[in-house]
């Protein structure tokens, strides 16, 4: 009994002492907890004798948001570029998608290297609110003395002059009316008329895909969702899915949107029928902003992937925080053979442009004769 009591007292006492030391003692100043002070961070090379190491350190700093250290290893080609601009490019600004993202992982490979300079290609994977986004970026490194530096040759965005842009595009508001005391039949406002104009079901590497286009035939905006149910030969439903974000949900009058519905791990050979359902509801909306899609071109990128790229031009006075590009690809009969989409990571400022690129599966590149790009926009503050 006495021995037990003594043991308990000792354990409690030691725990208390350790707690006090941990809370009040000198903090660990460097490195990750668990790593002995003075040694390298996991992945961080103290010795940057190679371009791989230099780029690795740089990207690790970007990942950990050590902007001062990251900026210290870049060499600016434009002397007027500031650390703030550098930070904003990597961190995102104006509520763009990058501002809500973090660099999850990266994989850098050399393209070519000499003793004094190197070209590296890094595949960056960003964790974003809309899922993982992959970005492939080429880095140019030069050796200065015994240090490798990352060349930062980003040209600053054009400075749009201050101006007043009148907004006189139409907007629609929804008034639900006074529910109490309203007589039967007096509050009739029909929902918008929306029609699916095409549907195509195909097999893909990930499963079955149903895609096509939908049009708002009405004179008022519609909030649209397209659902599909795959039915087998016995008439039983195999699965039903929605278009989720692969559609422009708010369709203005006479606007056409592609849609794509994915059915992962379902073989199209098991499907006998596809039941389509489009739901449209009244929604307040605005015709503004108007976004142009300029210089669209379909060609192969440096890795041999078929990519449709271009520039989004914001012709309005409102910042588009998160632009989302959806592309429908057509064959020579005008049939939709694929729908791709991609988010633009930087916000689209008024009267400014941002590049975009979406990939087309290699197997379809030969079939595509035409394409149509539409832009979905998410704005944090609606005026």
């Amino acid at each position: 009994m006495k021995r037990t009591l003594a043991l308990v007292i000792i354990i409690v006492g030691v725990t208390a002492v350790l707690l006090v030391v941990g809370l009040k003692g000198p903090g660990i100043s460097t490195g990750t907890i668990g790593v002995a002070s003075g040694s390298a961070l996991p992945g961080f090379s103290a010795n940057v004798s190679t371009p791989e190491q230099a780029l690795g350190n740089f990207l690790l700093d970007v990942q950990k948001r050590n902007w001062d250290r990251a900026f210290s290893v870049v060499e600016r080609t434009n002397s007027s570029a500031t650390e703030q601009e550098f930070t904003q490019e990597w961190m995102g600004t104006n509520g763009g998608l990058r501002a809500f993202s973090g660099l999850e992982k990266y994989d850098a490979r050399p393209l070519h290297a000499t003793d004094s300079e190197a070209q590296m290609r890094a595949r960056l994977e960003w964790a974003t609110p809309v899922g993982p986004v992959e970005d492939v970026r080429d880095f140019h490194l030069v050796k200065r003395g015994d240090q490798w530096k990352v060349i930062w040759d980003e040209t600053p965005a054009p400075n749009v002059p201050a101006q007043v842009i009148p907004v006189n595009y139409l907007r629609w508001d929804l008034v639900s009316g006074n529910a109490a005391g309203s007589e039967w039949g007096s509050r009739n406002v029909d929902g918008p008329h929306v029609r699916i104009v095409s549907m195509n079901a195909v097999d893909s590497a990930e499963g079955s895909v149903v895609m096509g286009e939908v049009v708002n035939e009405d004179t008022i905006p519609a909030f649209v969702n397209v659902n599909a149910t795959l039915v087998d030969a016995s008439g039983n439903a195999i699965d039903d899915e929605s278009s989720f974000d692969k559609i422009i949900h708010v369709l203005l009058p006479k606007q056409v949107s592609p849609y794509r519905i994915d059915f992962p791990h379902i073989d199209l050979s098991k499907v006998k029928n596809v039941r389509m359902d489009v739901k449209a509801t009244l929604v307040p909306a605005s015709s503004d902003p108007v976004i142009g899609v300029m210089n669209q071109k379909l060609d192969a990128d440096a890795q041999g992937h078929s990519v449709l790229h271009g520039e989004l031009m914001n012709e309005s006075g409102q910042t588009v925080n998160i632009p989302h590009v959806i592309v429908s690809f057509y064959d020579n009969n005008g049939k939709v053979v694929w729908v791709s989409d991609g988010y633009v990571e930087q916000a689209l400022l008024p009267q400014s442009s941002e590049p975009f690129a979406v990939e087309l599966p290699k197997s379809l590149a030969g079939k595509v004769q035409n394409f149509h790009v539409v832009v979905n926009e998410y704005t944090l503050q609606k005026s």
Partner: protein
Amino acid sequence: MSWSMNTLCRNHSVRNTLILGLGVVALAAVALSQTLNVRVPSAAVAGESIWIGTTGSGSATFYLIGPTVSLKHDVQLGSEIVVPSKQTEIAGQYKAVVCVDHCQSADFYVAPAKPASLTFLVHPSRVPVGQNDAISGVALAFDEFGNLIFEPSTVDFQLAAKGSALTTRSVQTQNGIAWFRAPSGKAAGALQVTASLHDVSARRVVQQVASDPCNLRIKGQRTPKGVLVETEPIRDCAGNPVPDGTVVTFTAKNGNEISTVDAPVKQDVARAQIQAKGTLVVSAASGVVMGNELRLEAQ
């Protein structure tokens, strides 16, 4: 002494007593049943007081069972029971029940009162111009208490739009309902639709909107930044301007480079600034309607 039926029947005095007793009982039953009687009105109208007669004497419990009504109170037999108008507002079948030691009931119907409101359902709320049988309306007549009036009556429907002649048609209700179908007019604008029955009416508005764009034509000019392209005033085939906000897609092609802008119509015209170089072929489309093509040479 054993008592058997035979013995009883042979005994005259007993037999007579039995017959007398049975007769008394029968008479009493008849008397009782004759005492409790309920008289109900042959014709009652919603919202009017009614009188229910009873026969007999003594006190009884009166029940009135009907749509929304479940009354119970004590009454004196032989007097008339007044049912206030508040209890007969709802049309339908009623049961008047009077109970002493047994219950007697009678049914009667309350008919709807005169028309006081029209429920008018009109579809759709928006309709493209020039469509056959595009507009329909259904009218139901109710009295002030919400009872459906199913006696035949004539409902007048009127359709009036600015710049069009007034259309009127009279329809006899069948099973309490009158309905019509009509084509939409040629001119866009509000169509007033009215249903009237005697001095009761209901009005609805149908928006007649322009149909699909017709003869979509564009014009353009070069600017320092690219091309400014705009449509001529966009109208449907009946000459109605398409509503503002209708999206027109402008497309400019230069070889295998394409630029597009989805621009909404503003005051009958859609315009867009397209940043593109070189010789351009520009076209426009709205919904499923295509416009003309324009060729603009490089500057």
